[in-house]
């Protein structure tokens, strides 16, 4: 009771303070040219770039736009990079922003994020995506999906062109735009360093042609030494395993694994092909390597992964549990569940859309199964895919 009174009393302060904070943050967002659009890179005192030319510029003469794009994908195999970026991802109607200190080498990446008072790190060691939580000394380990990059598919569905030249972080860059071959504005814009082809700035646009992601380097160095342990979990930290979906399965094998007949969507947006299926099931308690996540006994989920060469469409389906069939969907207990973005727990409904910037999720409650579709498509497209499974 006392705790409740404390909370209520403080809520009054909350009401006084939060609108100002929210308004300030919102107003700050507007202070760029367009809400959500990051400020231009400022070449000058704050932008630093060091390192002698590392790749002979002559080697790039005559390269097509696609050549540049594919070279940028593997740039850190040839040269190590250290820098600082400003990054933004559009979530709901706000831009989530952070600064990240970046170290990349041999195809591995480490990002140390700062967003307000939050600090966390993300490591890609080539096999796992590892999220480090310093406040609790925990490492959440998610096996990296084995995504098969199909260049021919990408080039079939998209066009790439060099649209101009500029400077980023005081370095000359080529601007490459990637747009759907069927027409429409670019979905990606890359500012590629002329010497290394490393992307010093990126902009991603959503299916609604809104700026969804933006990252730009404000400081960069090439050819840096990589400190030992940079891409490893610190000693003594708790390791929590997350389900990475296991090996790629054909639909028949996936059906056998989940225990129900997995249905393929009858509708797919143009250009998407099936990469494979994955079985997702939270590991039970007592797993040798650490604490499990999620509830034990969660029903297995079949994931079908599609791609058009660049974008990913993930289609998940699971059977409704007996409990759900008898008592309806679990709504949550112990009070309203509030997400960090202030969204209340949804009432049970047939369709639920989470608009997370360019990656949206539609959850569709069918008669027998729950279907969740995630991708960089419009809400209508995602819903159409979801409904085509029932």
């Amino acid at each position: 009771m006392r705790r409740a009174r404390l909370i209520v009393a403080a809520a009054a302060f909350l009401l006084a303070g939060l609108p100002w904070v929210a308004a300030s943050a919102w107003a700050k967002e507007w202070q760029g040219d367009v809400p959500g659009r990051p400020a231009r890179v400022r070449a000058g005192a704050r932008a630093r770039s060091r390192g002698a030319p590392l790749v002979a510029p002559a080697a790039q003469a005559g390269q097509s736009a696609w050549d540049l794009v594919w070279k940028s994908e593997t740039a850190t195999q040839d040269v190590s990079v250290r820098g600082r970026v400003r990054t933004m991802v559009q979530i709901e109607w706000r831009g989530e922003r952070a600064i990240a200190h970046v170290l990349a080498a041999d195809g591995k990446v480490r990002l140390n994020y700062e967003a307000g008072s939050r600090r966390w790190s993300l490591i890609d060691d080539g096999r796992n995506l590892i999220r480090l939580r310093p406040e609790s000394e925990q490492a959440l380990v998610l096996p990296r999906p084995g995504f098969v990059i199909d260049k021919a598919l990408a080039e079939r569905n998209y066009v790439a062109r060099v649209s101009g030249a500029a400077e980023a972080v005081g370095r000359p860059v080529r601007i490459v735009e990637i747009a759907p071959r069927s027409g429409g504005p670019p979905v990606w814009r890359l500012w590629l360093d002329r010497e290394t082809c490393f992307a010093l700035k990126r902009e991603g646009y959503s299916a609604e042609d809104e700026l969804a992601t933006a990252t730009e380097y404000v400081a960069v160095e090439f050819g840096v030494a990589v400190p030992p342990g940079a891409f490893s979990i610190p000693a003594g930290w708790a390791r929590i395993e997350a389900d990475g979906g296991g090996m790629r399965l054909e639909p028949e094998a996936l059906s056998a694994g989940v225990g129900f007949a997995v249905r393929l969507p009858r509708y797919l947006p143009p250009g998407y092909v099936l990469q494979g299926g994955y079985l997702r099931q939270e590991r039970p308690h007592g797993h040798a390597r650490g604490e499990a996540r999620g509830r034990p006994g969660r029903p297995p989920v079949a994931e079908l992964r599609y791609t058009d060469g660049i974008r990913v469409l993930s289609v998940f389906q699971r059977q409704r549990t007996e409990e759900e069939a008898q008592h309806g969907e679990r709504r949550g207990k112990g009070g309203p569940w509030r997400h960090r973005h202030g969204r209340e727990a949804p009432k049970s409904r047939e369709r639920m859309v989470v608009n997370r910037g360019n990656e949206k999720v539609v959850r569709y409650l069918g008669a027998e199964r729950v279907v969740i579709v995630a991708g960089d498509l419009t809400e209508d497209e995602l819903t159409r895919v979801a409904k085509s499974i029932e």
Partner: protein
Amino acid sequence: MTCDQVRPRLADYAVGALRGRERARLLNHVGACASCGAELEALERTGALVSRLSLESAPTGAWEAICHRIRDEGGGSARRGWGRALAMAGVALAVLIVALITFLPTLQRESGSPVMPQADEDIQLTMEAHLAAVWSAPLADAAAVGLHLGSVEDDS
């Protein structure tokens, strides 16, 4: 240009979206083709028709309601300073309260409350899996996807 090529672009021309050569070529055709010329005029008349609609005023009493709220929250330049100081204090306490609300569920989870709604649990786990795939896809903006992943995790 043929009529089949021009027709789909007439509306773009009417709203001023065409430039340079395409605009000139369309104008050339329209000047010589009565049918396309008539259609362009119809599109322009449509625009003019819509432009004649007037704006609708907000219901009476709306300003009074707004004024009441902003004066309650501290309107006026002198009060802005106080408002800001109060807000800062409110923010500090708000951070404390948010932390309490965030950790209370964790502390109480063993006793069975609160439990994430099924829908949110579905979404969180699938979004995480999807973002991991996006991370591995070509042209992935690693920094932004990582920020996105961090946000999904924060919803747990």
